[in-house]
């Protein structure tokens, strides 16, 4: 009796029908210096169908692409700060089997300062302290109050590595990458972000008519989001940071930014035009958590709008935004090499 039961269970477990029709590609993303690369975006494109399957690498650098129909796959990977990786040989996937494909993603592009511990850079994002608990603070007129010092979300978090670009923009992006990103304006201390939040530290100062973000690690150090009901000016001269107005949809603050010039690079190297419109939806879930959903809409450069989600956590009460004077002692510029 008991042995019959055991056999039945054994048959049941091994005969899970859906699993064995698919295969898996798994591996580890690592850089030339040997360390693991977390947050890399890995893509496997089926040669037969053209369908693209995606996964991200975790803190240990490992990734898994599962539920893959059997066939042949081209594997590529991108990670912030690295050149795009394209695996030379096709990865075959068979039903019910796991294929290993490690990704040696190459040298970190960014210019290392002597003595800088690159592993600690990753720790900045993955080892943030647990934020305090509590309800959403409110302003005297009942709106959510976003004020506080926030640890920003990971770059491009949750939405893949960037927008789907029109052919001209895709070609330009590739050219920028081939040149080792040497012409990135932020390397010359020009502004970097088109959104009011950065992935490092941000301080939000909210008053009735104005929301100000004070941003670590960008020029300018602050952004203004007007809450006083003004619209955008008619004769807006394009600028690096554009013009931002905020309106409330219930407890969500919807920030509309237009008037951007075309000089910033999105994500790592994606171009955009002056038509770019950035919509940022802010929600404070509780005392310690901010949800940030950003949509980038640029019909001049993108095939369709690109939405990315991120979450910020409240920093510890002693955290302060340090002064960042980019062009003091900017020693990197003369080292930028590329075609």
């Amino acid at each position, binding site marked *: 009796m008991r042995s019959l039961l055991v056999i039945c269970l054994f048959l049941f477990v091994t005969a899970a029908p859906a699993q064995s029709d698919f295969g898996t590609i798994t591996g580890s993303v690592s850089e030339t210096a040997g360390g693991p690369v977390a947050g890399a975006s890995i893509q496997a494109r089926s040669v037969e169908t053209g369908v693209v399957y995606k996964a991200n690498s975790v803190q240990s650098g490992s990734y898994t692409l599962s539920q893959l129909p059997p066939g042949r796959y081209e594997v590529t990977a991108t990670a912030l700060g690295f050149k795009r990786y394209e695996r030379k040989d096709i990865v075959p996937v068979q039903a019910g089997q796991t294929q290993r494909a490690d990704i040696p993603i190459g040298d970190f592009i960014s210019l290392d300062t002597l003595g800088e511990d690159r592993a600690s850079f990753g720790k900045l994002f993955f080892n943030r302290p647990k934020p305090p608990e509590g309800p959403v603070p409110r302003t*005297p007129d009942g709106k959510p109050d976003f*004020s506080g010092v926030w640890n920003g979300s990971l770059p491009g978090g949750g939405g893949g590595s960037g927008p789907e670009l029109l052919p001209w923009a895709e070609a330009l992006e590739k050219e920028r990458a081939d040149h080792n990103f040497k012409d990135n304006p932020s390397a*010359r*201390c*020009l*502004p970097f972000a088109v959104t009011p939040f950065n992935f490092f530290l941000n*301080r939000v*100062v*909210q*008053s009735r*008519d*104005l929301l*100000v973000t*004070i941003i670590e690690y960008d*020029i*300018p*150090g*602050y952004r*203004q989001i007007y809450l*006083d009901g*003004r*619209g*955008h*000016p*008619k*004769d*807006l*001269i394009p*600028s*690096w*940071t554009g013009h931002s107005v905020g309106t409330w949809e219930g407890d969500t603050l919807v920030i509309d930014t237009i008037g951007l010039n075309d000089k910033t690079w999105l994500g790592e190297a994606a171009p955009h035009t002056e038509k770019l419109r950035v919509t940022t939806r802010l929600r404070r879930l509780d005392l310690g958590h901010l949800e940030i959903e950003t949509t980038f809409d640029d019909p001049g450069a993108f095939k369709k709008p690109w939405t990315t989600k991120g979450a910020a956590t409240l920093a510890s009460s002693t955290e*302060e*935004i*340090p*002064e960042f*004077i980019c*062009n*003091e002692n900017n020693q990197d510029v003369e080292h930028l090499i590329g075609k």
Partner: protein
Amino acid sequence: MLSAAPALAQWDNVTHKNVPRKADGKPNLSAPAPRGPDGKPDLAGMWWMPNRGPANADIPPKYLNNIAADLNPEEVPLQPWAAELFRKRGAEFSRDFPYTRCLPSGPMISSFPAPWKLIQTPGLVVILYENSTIYRQIFTDGRVRSKDADATFMGYSVGHWEGDTLVVETTGYNDKTWLDFSGHPHTDALKMTERFRRPDFGHLEIQFTFDDPKAYTKPWTVTIHPELFLDGDLLESICTENEKDLHRVVGK
């Protein structure tokens, strides 16, 4: 480069609410200064030091050029080495003025003619500056600068109220900025005290005391009078973009 004329058409959408008006609809700048819910004066608003020099005159505005313009030279108690450095900077036509290299203005930022915006919240006053798009945080929640904090261009500011005066004390400056274009020096020992008052709706008064025993034999004080700026909002001013002046700066 040193003056900023606002581009007025840019701001056709800005209307200022809560501005007391005269019978003819113009802002009443002599109206009483507003107060916040805590009874303290509300210093919030956009302010600037209007440049009332002749149009197109190629001279920097008065206090930007010389923060001690209202004093006699002997009232600026320079240490001998500092007096010599001040003389040298003048002889070199202020060639090494840090702002020419797009470095922050340090203590003298309030004397620039470009407007700035003061935001007053419980525990924190923030000032956003148009020139160099830099900002200051003035902590009014009782905290003090950490002893192992780095020296910075803009220093570390804490403030408290004495009656209707906001007293702001700033320490932790590095020694890389000048007090004005003509080159009054300061060192990292500088403690700058600003006493902010708002005598009426349209006027601010900031009394600066420079206490820097390494550069001056005793503290000295100057007062400036910023005015309310109602003609628009802060413009983006990215100094390092298309910077063309540097190679033309002459000096011995």
